[in-house]
């Protein structure tokens, strides 16, 4: 049985800077991001993922970017950092639902060369489970 947890970051001008929705199923963490991923919100994402890896033994992290409006190099840094943290643990980081303008930035950074991208959460979840 999984569970869902919502973490809210601060609000500016009536809009959320970044909202995280966590869903955990067995040893997989699905993190749905909603908002902007920059140096300010990157630390929140780092903490939200690391606590599950360290305390709960999560080994697969799926990041759903469907509702992400902005990413810069600080945001990409936190993704790469989680990939590097999971690698020696035998874990995996997967990214899904990336909007085209966000993918452009990711492509320029070379991220798709090392991290697996999926159409949606279902594809990411099934892959690697032998299903």
């Amino acid at each position, binding site marked *: 049985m999984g569970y869902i947890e919502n973490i809210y970051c*601060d609000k*500016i*001008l009536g809009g959320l*800077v970044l909202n995280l929705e966590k869903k955990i199923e067995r040893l997989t963490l699905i993190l749905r991001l909603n908002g*902007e991923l*920059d*140096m*300010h919100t990157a630390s929140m994402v*780092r903490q939200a993922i690391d606590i599950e890896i360290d305390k709960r033994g999560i080994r697969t992290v799926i990041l759903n970017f469907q509702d992400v409006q*902005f990413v*810069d*190099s*600080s945001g*990409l*840094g*936190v993704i*790469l*950092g989680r990939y*590097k943290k999971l690698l020696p643990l035998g874990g995996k980081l997967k990214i899904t639902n990336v909007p085209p*303008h966000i993918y452009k*930035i990711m492509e*320029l*950074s070379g991220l798709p060369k090392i991290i697996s991208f999926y159409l949606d959460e279902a594809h990411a979840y099934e892959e690697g489970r032998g299903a």
Partner: protein
Amino acid sequence: MKTNHISLTFTSISENVALTRLIIASVGAQLDLPLNDIEELKVAVSEAVSNAIIHGYSNSPDYIVFLDLDFEDGTLKIEVRDEGCGIANIEQAMQPAYSTDPERMGLGFVFMQSFMDELQVESTPEVGTTVTMMKHFKQIPISSH
């Protein structure tokens, strides 16, 4: 095409990076720029301002960052200045994948260079750093508002 100038001084806290993106997006919208161009300007500004806070001021929230936007003769000039520690070796700092922090990708200057037409970095150790970026727009429709 109207000329425009915006000057902003703000505290070196990470929350303010989003504010600078809102400003550049508003300026881009005033100029009737395509959404794609606005997205690229937002990334360039975000990188320059983040650098000022993270590197110039070592993430200390007690300093001031200066942002100047100028639009004249079809050219948008963005200047981000800090009075922080400065960069000893600008050439090294601007290399792709160079970073002082393993959690970061060292892509700030790469994005600024990719999304802007001109990039200039002036820095003096212990005095500060000024990043000047230019983007030339040739055929912007004259806005009715």
